[in-house]
């Protein structure tokens, strides 16, 4: 982590910085970043926003855009566990996103009209039919269910070699949306509401009880006047938890086992690392965060729609990981924020700008995935370690992991 700043150390200031204990060098920038993030909605409410009329991008993203950005960053950090830490290429991460979103749809909406089940739901009338579980619990449930899905997908497939794994995950990433789209008539049972999707989905909140107890905790985010801010802070909290887990995981025994597998599977097995179990953990934990993010996003938009879950999302997330640097948490957060913002409004803004300011008539947003493709290829060719490389990964990429020859080992 010290390399975030440590390497770029400029002159005397840099030297002073390098003398700080490692813990401080991590904590200081992290604290500054968190503070900036916490203050972000405040920026939008004030005169500051008027003066930051940035060329090309016009304005910093709105708070509601920021929520979407954070959700995607959480997913990218989750995918980074699978791709970056363990070196398993997952091209179907969107499946986990879908499972998370639909779990929220099942457990916190009026979708199952045939039953009426309420469990700690906040701000939802008791008279409404359907399953209404408290959304905080739903998030956890979605994470766990998605992790379970990850294990189910992983157990049979993780024995396969890397590239086969990629295609199998891609297959799952395709099956899940097909299932979701057509799951409105499974032998007469409506599980997924087909192309209509499930909505509305309940929103998180603290209910009447806590509202009274702590004087001010919102009953229900969706019904609040400061809805976006509430969703933003909750998302930020989720992101921080995810980041904390992700960093701790990397430094853990399990994290070292992942890296060992990534660098040399055979050697790792010879050292007594249980390959299957270790890889399955990577898969399950990566899926866990994808599920939470999916459920939270569904709750934010108050709906889960099948049209959102397509292959391009998986590649979009992969692009974040590649651009940031596989395995590098901070890199993925940076790249994820930039790309997610570009996706939501940045590219459209740039397109408008180009149209207005230049004779170019080029719809940037239309070619967004082409642009991601170019980013992926350029990064892999010229900077495979990403913008902010993880130190260990850097060594691997530069030296190659195999006995090097002109043509590569083909055995």
């Amino acid at each position, binding site marked *: 982590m010290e390399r975030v700043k440590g390497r770029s150390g400029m002159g005397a200031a840099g030297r002073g910085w390098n003398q700080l204990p490692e813990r401080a060098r991590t904590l200081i920038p992290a604290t500054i970043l968190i503070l900036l993030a916490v203050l972000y909605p405040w920026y939008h409410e004030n005169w500051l926003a008027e003066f930051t009329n940035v060329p090309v991008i016009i304005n910093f993203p709105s708070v509601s855009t920021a929520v979407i950005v954070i959700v995607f960053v959480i997913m990218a950090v989750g995918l980074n566990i699978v791709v970056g830490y363990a070196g398993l290429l997952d091209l179907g991460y969107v499946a986990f996103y879908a499972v998370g979103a639909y779990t929220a749809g099942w457990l916190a909406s009026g979708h199952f009209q045939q039953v009426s089940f309420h469990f700690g739901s906040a701000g939802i009338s008791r008279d409404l039919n359907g399953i209404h579980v408290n959304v905080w619990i739903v998030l956890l449930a979605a994470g766990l269910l998605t992790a379970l899905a990850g294990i189910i997908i992983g157990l049979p497939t993780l024995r396969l070699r890397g590239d086969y794994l990629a295609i199998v995950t891609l297959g799952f990433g395709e099956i899940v949306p097909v299932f979701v789209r057509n799951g409105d008539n499974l032998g007469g049972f409506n599980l997924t509401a087909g192309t209509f999707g499930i909505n509305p989905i309940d929103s998180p909140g603290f209910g009447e009880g806590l509202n009274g107890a702590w004087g001010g905790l919102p009953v229900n985010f969706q019904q609040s006047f400061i809805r976006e801010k509430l969703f933003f802070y909750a998302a930020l909290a989720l992101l921080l938890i995810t980041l904390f887990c992700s960093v701790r995981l990397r430094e853990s025994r399990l994290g070292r086992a992942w890296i060992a597998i990534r660098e040399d599977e055979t050697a790792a097995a010879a050292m007594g690392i249980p390959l299957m179990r270790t890889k399955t953990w990577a898969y399950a934990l990566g899926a866990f965060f994808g599920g939470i993010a999916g459920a939270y996003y569904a709750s934010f938009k108050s709906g889960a729609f099948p049209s959102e879950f397509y292959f391009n999302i998986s590649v979009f997330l992969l692009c974040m990981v590649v651009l940031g640097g596989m395995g590098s948490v901070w890199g993925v957060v940076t790249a994820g924020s930039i790309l997610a913002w570009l996706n939501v409004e940045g590219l459209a803004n740039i397109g408008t700008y180009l149209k207005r300011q230049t004779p170019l008539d080029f719809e940037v947003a239309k070619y967004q995935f082409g642009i991601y493709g170019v980013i992926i290829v350029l990064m892999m060719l010229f900077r495979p370690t990403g913008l902010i490389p993880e130190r260990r990964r850097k060594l691997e990429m*530069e*030296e*190659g992991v195999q*006995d*090097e*020859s*002109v*043509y590569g080992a083909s055995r």
Partner: protein
Amino acid sequence: MSEQTPPPERAAESPAPQPETQAPPQQQRANGGRDGVILEVTDIHTYYGSIHALKGISLQVREGEIVTLIGANGAGKSTTLRSINGLNNPRKGRIVFQGKDITNDPAHSIVKMGISQSPEGRRLFPHMSVLENLEMGAFQRTDRQNFKEDLDRVYALFPRLAERKTQRAGTLSGGEQQMVAMGRALMARPKLVMLDEPSMGLAPIFVERIFEIVKEINQQGTPILLVEQNAMMALDVAHRGYVMETGHIALTDDAKALAKNEQVQKAYLGMD
């Protein structure tokens, strides 16, 4: 090619022998053909990624010679061969074959020039038959009429291969595979053969046979660069030898003299 190879530095223009390298007794200048020198390697440095595998290797092979390269595992013997055959071009130094600089030539054109190799671990094409493997050895040749002649020569050297010519190479025994690998190298009608660990993993009886064949190939007129861990056998058949240690040439001498050298005996021949 993950790293950019810098332009070749003409080491021959400023010959700076490594201090720990004992210069070969012969002259230093690269002059193909003169004094019968067919291959002249001068102070090459080769890398695996960022690992500096060869730190200034110089050696020579002359017409009609068997030259052996001995040394412990990881000393850089195979890397030396890979530098010569173009699979791992050196970053520094010079390799001259028959008076022509081949330092940075690609592998396939080096084969065409007349250096063929039986690689370590045999590396046959497992899904091809014995005959097809031998045909692959003659891939670069255009003189189809001599093909049959060379095939007969290989079958004469290894009668076992004639019996097994339709069998798939992957199903042969280790000794037979080694014969195919050597036969395949000869099918290129090479001007220099490099044999990498031909005795590795073979039963003792096969080992003896392989070394007899090495001698026989040489007596038919082909110079041989022989890499071996079995130093005793290698020094027995070779004319001259080089002893490698972690990327350097530690010693070089007449094979007979090396076999008697105390250091060599201690380190590689297991004698006290």
